[in-house]
Structures are given as C-alpha cells and as structure tokens.
C-alpha cells in the first residue's frame, strides 16, 4: 500500500514536471525567434529518430519475409539460367526439370554443425517430389544428400560428414577426384586422388564433376590450397569451401530423373 503511494507520488511529480517543461518550451518557441528555430529543429530530429527507429524495427521483423521472397526469386532466376544453358539460348519457359535434373526449392529446418556426423532437415518431403538420394545444394556448393524422406520433411546427410564423398574436379575441365570434409574446420575439405602428373595452382576453383548421378556438374564448391603427395602417386589437395554451413537457410533439392536408368545399367554391368 505504501509502495503504491510512493509510485503514485513519483508518477504525479513526473507528470507535473513534463507538463511544466513542455509548457515552458512552447512559450519559448513562440517568444524567442532563435529558440523557436532551435526547438523546431530538436523536435524534428526527435521525430526523425523515432520514425527512423520504428521503421528499422519494422524492417527487421519483415526481414524473414523478404528473405523468403528473395530466395524464391533467386530460385526462379537460377532455373532460368539453367534453362538457358540447357537450351543453348533458346528457353522454352521455366520448368522445375532442366535436362536430367529436377530442382525443388526448400528451407533448412534444422542443421547440425558440431558433430562428426552432421545432418540437415528440410521442409520438403515425398509429397513435394523429393526422392531418396537427391542432392541438396545452394549457389555456394553442396550441402548434403537426402537419406530419408517423410511426407513433408526430409532428412539429409550433411557434406560435413566423415563418410560423405562428392565427385569434384579442378576447374571446369580439369582432373576429377573425391572431395570430402576434412573433419576439423567448418569450411575445410580435401580433394583426393588427383593424379601426380597434374600441375596444380593454388587458388583454382573446384566444381562438381557431374560424374555421380546425384549432383549436376559445374557447381562451384571452393578453392584449392596446399597439395601433398600421397603414396607417391596422387595428390591430396586442401580445399577451402565457399559454403558457410552455419548460415544455411534456403536450399535447392536436385534430383536426377535418370538415376534409376543409370543405376540399372551399373547393376547389369556388375552382374
């Protein structure tokens, strides 16, 4: 009860203080020409700060929507580029399937980064057309491979997984090898089995080779670094990945529609 009285008294004092100061400022504004300009300037600055602040807050909270819209647009434009490439400059409308690959836009729902066997969960499943062993990519590189699918979600093995290997090549037409996570750094990988006779230049870009039936060719993955000779016959080359796995949010699922045919042929050959 006593506390309430104290709070009320403080409230009344503050109200009287603000009222009297505002009255004084209004009088000052109307009676002193210099003070009038000074106070107007101050009031305008205050309004600008308040409106600017409110606008910043509003923009901040709409960032997610804007990001989603941009990701959608980015996906559409990427599809258009792929279509142009495929059709040699004669696009025939935008489709989700370009050449042998079908592309589906998705959001990463969960990404693990601190384990030895990292994974990714995306918000697209079998009902959205995602199939097992589809690739998960972004414009910065390979994210992982779909391992299990639900109706509306899919679970994928992240590239940052000790048993995941991607077929990659140095440059668009250079030698191909196996790219795998180095198991230590967040953006480090090792490109293995590059023949010893190849002349290497640190800083070369590494692309997907397209030799696997999962990832399309020519997705930039990273740049080469130091090389070490292994068993006197091949190089192991350090690669710094472009992909920042800690900020993966919007991804594209890529599915090779001819994968079954390729697998069938491989099985026939093995038999």
């Amino acid at each position: 009860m006593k506390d309430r009285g104290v709070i009320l008294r403080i409230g009344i004092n503050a109200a009287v203080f603000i009222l009297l100061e505002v009255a004084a400022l209004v009088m000052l504004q109307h009676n002193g020409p210099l003070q009038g300009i000074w106070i107007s300037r101050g009031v305008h600055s205050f309004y600008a700060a308040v409106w600017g602040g409110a606008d910043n807050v509003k923009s901040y909270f709409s960032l997610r929507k804007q990001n989603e819209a941009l990701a959608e647009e980015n996906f559409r434009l990427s599809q258009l580029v792929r279509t142009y490439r495929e059709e040699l400059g004669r696009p025939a409308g935008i489709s989700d399937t370009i050449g042998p690959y079908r592309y589906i836009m998705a959001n990463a729902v969960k990404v693990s980064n601190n384990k030895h066997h990292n994974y990714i969960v995306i918000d697209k499943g079998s009902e959205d057309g995602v199939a097992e062993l589809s690739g998960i990519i972004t414009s910065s590189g390979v994210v992982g491979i779909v391992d299990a699918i639900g109706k509306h979600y899919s679970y994928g093995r992240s590239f940052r997984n000790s048993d995941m290997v991607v077929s990659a090549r140095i440059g668009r037409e250079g030698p191909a090898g196996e790219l795998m996570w180095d198991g230590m750094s967040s953006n480090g990988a090792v490109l293995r089995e590059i023949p010893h006779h190849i002349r290497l230049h640190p800083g070369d870009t590494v692309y997907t080779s397209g030799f696997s039936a999962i990832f399309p060719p020519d997705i930039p993955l990273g740049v080469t670094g130091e090389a070490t000779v292994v068993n006197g016959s091949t190089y192991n080359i350090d690669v710094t990945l472009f992909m920042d796995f800690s900020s993966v949010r919007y991804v594209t699922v890529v599915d090779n529609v001819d994968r079954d045919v390729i697998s069938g042929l491989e099985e026939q050959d093995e038999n």
Partner: protein
Amino acid sequence: MKTNRNNALIYILLVVAQILICNFINLGQYLMLSILPVMVLCLPLTIPAAGLMLISAVCGLAVDWLAEGILGLNMLAIVPVAFIRNMVVNLLFGKDHTERGDGFSIRKNGFVRVSVAILICQAVFLTIYVIADGAGTRPFLFNLIEVGVSLVCGYIISLPIVNMLTSDGK
C-alpha cells in the same frame, strides 16, 4: 502564522529583486546572476515536489514576464531545480529533514553541505538557462565560461540569501 506570512513576503521581495537584477544590472555577456535556484532550495520542506514545481514555475514566469526576457526561459530552467530539490536535500542532509519538515541551515548541516546544495541547484539552473538562451548558436566554450562565471557569482550571492531564508537567520 506570522512566520508564514513573513516568509511569503520575503519570497515575493526576492522575486522582485531578481526582476530588478534582470532589468537593471547588466554584468556583461559572460555573467548571468540568478537567485531563483537558491530561493527554490530554501522553500519549506513540507511543500510536496509537485507544489514546489508549480511555485517555481510561477516565479520563473513572473521574472520572464516582468524582466523583458524571453517568456518561458527562466521557467524552463527553474522547474528542474524544483524537481530535484528534495533529492538533493535527502542526499546531502538526510531523509529525516524531508520527513520531519525541518528546515536546514548552515549551522545545523554545515557550510560544506549547504554550499554543495547551492552549487548543484545553481549548476542545473545555469546549464539549462545558458543552453536554451544560446539556442545552439554559441560555441561550447562560451557556454562553459558563462556557466562557470555565473556559478561562482551565483554561489556568492546565494550564501546570504540562504542565511536569510533558513532557520539560522530567523
């Protein structure tokens, strides 16, 4: 009853004195003499903060009106002094004074504490007054010198007024 009437009369006379200082004593551009802060400081402690602010606003407005100054300038500077008066008294002389409504005095509370109270009130008043008077057109150093010089002179003329208005002088 008689004491209250005397107090009121002294306060009115001091407001008149402040008006006369503003109207007829020109001490140069670096000096602004004001006894309003010390008057507010010495108003009875029984008056609640809201009442104190209203009284000081009326005094400030009267000085502005009758001293051909800019209407609202003294009021703008003196109301914050009234707002912090009880806090200053509590901080320097203890809460007992405010709760009992006892007045303070140099003899009871010491010269240093009363001086600090005067300096705080004068500093708050002068800072707001000088900044609002300059309206952003004067350099910072000019304002600083004006506040410093006026603070020293204001403190000196405040001491006899404190003596006159507080319990020692009566």
